[in-house]
């Protein structure tokens, strides 16, 4: 049985759909949706491609427009996205450049505003 889906969860799913449409409209190819990295429960919302660049998109949905979507992505999330993206790129035959984008959508399905932050962050340093 499906878990009871609350309003926020549904809005999140809708927002991802809106973001994917937005990216397609921009000319990107959406390669993956909700791509899962290994056994992790976490996922990459959208993986899109534009020429030689693979774009890893985190979608943040908000019912208000006060918070910055960039602030909603913390360093733990960034770390996860980087490791997941690294694994994804290694699976590919072709050698791609990476880019991490954040799309913030706020409002309601009927009346929303979308903000796209390209190249939002770089991978943190891995020093052993």
């Amino acid at each position, binding site marked *: 049985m499906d878990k009871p889906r609350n309003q926020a969860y549904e809005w999140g799913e809708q927002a991802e759909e809106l973001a994917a449409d937005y990216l397609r409209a921009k000319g990107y190819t959406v390669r993956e949706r909700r791509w899962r990295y290994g056994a992790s429960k976490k996922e990459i919302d959208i993986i899109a491609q534009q020429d030689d660049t693979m774009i890893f998109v985190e979608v943040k949905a908000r019912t208000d427009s006060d918070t910055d979507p960039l602030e909603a992505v913390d360093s733990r999330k960034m770390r996860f996205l980087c490791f997941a*993206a690294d694994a994804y790129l290694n699976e590919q035959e072709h050698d791609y450049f990476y880019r991490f984008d954040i799309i913030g959508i706020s409002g309601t399905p009927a009346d929303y505003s979308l903000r796209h932050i390209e190249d939002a962050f770089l991978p943190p340093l*891995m020093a052993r």
Partner: protein
Amino acid sequence: MLSKIYSAAVHGIEAFIVTIETVVDKGTLFTIVGLPDTAVKESYTRIVSAIKESRVVYPHRRITINLAPADVKKEGAGFDLPMALGILAANENITNPELASCMIAGELSLDGTVLPVKGVLPMAVKARQNGFRKMIVPAANATEAAVVNDIEVYGVENLIQAIDLLNGNSTLQPTVVDTRREFHLHADNFDLDFSDVKGQESVKRAFEVACAGGHNILLIGPPGSGKSMMAKRLPTIMPPLSLHEALETTKIHSVAGKLGRGSMLMTRRPFRAPHHTVSPVALVGGGTSPQPGEISLAHNGVLFLDEFPEFPRTVLEVLRQPIEDRVITVSRAKYSVDYPASFMLVASMNPCPCGYYGHPTRRCTCAPAQVQRYMNRISGPLLDRIDLQVEIQPVAFAEIASTARSESSTDIRARVVKARTVQQERFREEKGVYCNAQMSSRQLRRYAWPDSEGLERLRMAMERHNMSARAFDRILRVARTIADLDGSPGVLPRHIAEAITYRNLDRGTYGQIF
């Protein structure tokens, strides 16, 4: 793709080669391995920002950097530039088949400007030893590196210049320094001169003797008698630096980051005057990542300690070993570094806490016990390493107002150089001895033994002034130098007589009568 860039790190005052290997391939992670310290880890931020500011697209791919040798801790920001160029070379933004014969060092700022780094001179020396043909260094360090000839040195202002240079799109010319010419041009260039000092002829003479024999000297005199003034002029009468000495001294200053922008070889002997609040580590060198201290910065020059008894005892006692060995070893659990520290010690002090003990016109307000206690702050073993102890009197008005020009530094120096030449000849066969001050007791007996009349005079003086036994060796040593200045092969009674006057503190009565 893999790129290899060569850089260098400093250990003591010598550099060692660090190979920076960079691989760019599939993925997103940015990794630095090979024992980087915090400053090296932080270079990631600077490199990314600098590359983005430099009209070059930062490669958004997996970047792995290895700093070899992997077992030595890499410190400082000097790897920023080579790492940035390594990334670009691995990403094929830079294609230059001669990268392997090029040594690169420099710190990057966020806007891509290349900032100066410490220790460029020892790096250049190492680069030449290892057959590198080119060096890319910060523009501010270019002349410093160019002191080492036979290697093409390019000083770059920013990352773009470095990229263009390596890609052959640059008209940047190598920095050329004619080291020998520069050296000889500036060698005798002083803004101070002993002729500025009015009166004080006996003290000037003591300085001349000290320089001629490499003796340490202690000045005892009331405030305002010109102790510091004369000490500052001491480098002007010391023998000129040899090119080798100049290089060694410059290296130390380079490692300590004390050379200014665009400086070349240090052609004058250094004069270091640390304040008496100096810590033991600041004086002799050390710290978690060891840095040379004041005694090493004074290498081949003068270390002037004003208000000698005010220095904490712990600070003074650490001086004893480097004065003997002329080198200081800073030891850590994993390694130790040597810093040369061959300096002439010039100390000055007041005769008593109030400053007027023995003053011709003013009354000393100290109790005899106070004077004694003040003297006792300097330990015997340390005092033992100071051959000349000279009392200095304030200058009389007639002498200050006098317009008669006193002897110039050049004239005094000529005599000093002559005396030094005699000593070089004498100690040619003796290992590790270069001047009279370094003679052992056995060598004293061989080279500085006076005739019977001289011995008799020495015996009388020692009895009259109640001198200690250790004064005996000191007097002979100084007498030898005075004889050398005199051009005399043997030590004559008059040389002994003069030497005795430089042992004020050995008079057992000092501080007891007056």
